[in-house]
């Protein structure tokens, strides 16, 4: 008999399974861990490359991704870094696993990769084109910020190098909130950046938007979505603000420095407003966190499919997930340690796990709510049948016969449905990671000190 389940605390969406925890998943024997590289890629999954460039010109206080101040580095460090990235790429390309695998997608993220000199970006791209087999029309994407992206010369130069897409964090048009979130750019910069992208012929570009931030309400959310739709991006990512304990932002919230704090109720109201307002503009929800305008065709090799393909992560803190190699891992979350490992001839891997076929099944099941609808043939339906029936009985999922898909209620609670399909072992590991990070005063995301308040670090 199916179980009735009622979700109450809205959980964030999950993109990674299994988790990688710097405390629980340290890798001590890299040789054994990397032995999968001796076997040619079977070709059942597409190959993506993600490159993490760890510098920004501002430290937005909500961002958990590994990054440091661009202006605290010098040209020598950046050159060494780029050489290390190229060396890491070259080493992977020489392995049997990658000798014939066509790369269909290259994505520069961070940090703000657009800040790198054009010469450095060209060096990295040239390494990829020369050392790997690259598909005929790869998707090449780069993350910027609204100030940096106004540089039309650089945008044009990157287009010449094969970059096809750009993205940036828009977050909100509320200038006061932007300041409190220590975002350097303004709404005016957003408009100038979009103008530059259009003038330089970037037909495809995307932006991120945050909700359930302190002091946000439904009126502001609707305003943000209205303005974003007017700009006509190819894709929009919407994220509920995740505040990691021990961070500057967590401290501000706990000390009531904002006139109003995020809450479960606000998160629900604001996501509903996001869905309604995008629908009013004719935008379609294509993933649990993505919306796109009518008529835009999403590339099969694009960003919307990355979680189900083989992604090689290069650069500090970059994450690799390889269905084909049964590997899930993360590079060192420190530029110095990353460069040191690469220069000494090692893969700069910090933590990770070997992923069995059973866990791959769990991952695919967990990802179903992200995709909104999946064919039953793409998951191990029999294994998860009882849980699927619970979700159907409870109104979050419907069984169409050939597929299972989220209902409108399920789209609101997508993260919770994902969590329902987590194994008990994985839930325990996530819980342990949370408390180990709390014990050690670290940011939950990478178990490092990114945006951690100095007083928490000293405790």
């Amino acid at each position, binding site marked *: 008999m199916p179980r009735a389940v009622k979700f*109450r605390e809205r*959980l964030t969406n999950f993109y990674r399974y299994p988790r990688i925890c710097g405390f629980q998943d340290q890798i001590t024997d890299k040789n054994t861990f990397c032995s999968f590289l001796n076997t040619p890629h079977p070709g059942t999954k597409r190959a993506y490359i993600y490159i993490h460039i760890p510098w920004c010109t501002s430290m937005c206080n909500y961002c958990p991704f590994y990054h440091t101040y661009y202006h605290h580095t010098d040209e020598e460090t950046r050159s060494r870094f780029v050489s290390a990235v190229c060396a890491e790429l070259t080493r992977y390309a020489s392995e049997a696993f990658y000798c014939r695998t066509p790369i269909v997608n290259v994505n520069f993220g961070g940090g703000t990769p657009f800040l790198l000199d054009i010469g450095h970006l060209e060096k990295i791209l040239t390494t990829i084109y020369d050392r790997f087999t690259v598909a005929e029309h790869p998707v090449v994407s780069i993350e910027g910020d609204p100030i940096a992206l106004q540089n039309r010369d650089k945008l044009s130069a990157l287009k010449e190098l094969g970059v096809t897409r750009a993205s940036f964090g828009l977050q909100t048009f509320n200038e006061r909130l932007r300041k409190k979130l220590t975002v350097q750019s303004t709404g005016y910069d957003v408009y100038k950046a979009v103008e530059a992208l259009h003038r330089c012929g970037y037909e495809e570009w995307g932006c991120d938007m945050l909700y359930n931030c302190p002091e946000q309400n439904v009126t502001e959310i609707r305003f943000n979505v209205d303005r974003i739709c007017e700009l006509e991006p190819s894709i929009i990512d919407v994220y509920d603000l995740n*505040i990691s304990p021990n961070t500057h932002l967590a401290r501000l919230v706990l000390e009531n420095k904002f006139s109003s704090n995020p809450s479960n109720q606000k998160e629900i109201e604001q996501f509903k407003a996001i869905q309604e307002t995008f629908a009013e503009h004719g935008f379609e929800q294509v993933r649990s966190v993505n919306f796109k305008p009518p008529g835009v065709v999403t590339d099969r090799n694009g960003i919307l499919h990355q979680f189900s393909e083989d992604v090689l992560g290069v650069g500090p803190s970059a994450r690799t997930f390889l269905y084909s190699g049964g590997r899930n891992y993360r590079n060192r979350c420190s530029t110095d340690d990353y460069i040191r490992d690469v220069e000494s001839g090692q893969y700069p891997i910090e933590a990770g796990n070997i992923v069995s076929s059973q866990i791959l099944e769990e991952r695919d099941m967990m990802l179903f709510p992200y995709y909104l609808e999946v064919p039953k043939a793409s998951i191990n339906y029999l294994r998860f049948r009882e849980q699927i029936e619970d979700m159907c009985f409870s109104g979050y999922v419907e069984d169409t016969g050939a597929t299972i898909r989220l209902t409108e209620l399920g789209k609101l609670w997508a993260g919770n449905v994902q969590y329902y399909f987590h194994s008990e072992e994985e839930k*325990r590991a996530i*819980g342990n990671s*949370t408390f180990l990070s709390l*014990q050690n005063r670290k940011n939950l995301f990478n178990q490092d000190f990114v945006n951690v308040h100095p007083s928490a670090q000293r405790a």
Partner: protein
Amino acid sequence: MKSEYTTNTPQSQIVEDIVRFFRTDILNDETAELDPRDEIVSMGLIDSMGIVRLLTHLQNALGIREFARHDLTLDNFRSIEKIAAMIARYCVPAVAGGKRVSHGRGAT
């Protein structure tokens, strides 16, 4: 720092307080049914920021600045019942004015 809990505080009262906090602050639902034995993390009843808000609430209630690091474990926060049992270890004897006069096992 003033503590709401002392060694005279029944564990049932601590459990009630935590349940009330969950209803009002985490779930925003005064009528939510909660079993103190429910596995709060496993059931997805609380996220990481919720855990921090809960810790802050409990630290304030106990009149302590922070919990000892070795107490910040998944096991101690597995259920409301378990949390209450851990809280009980931090309770101090009641004195006039309700002020803490000793440190218990936590840091102040």
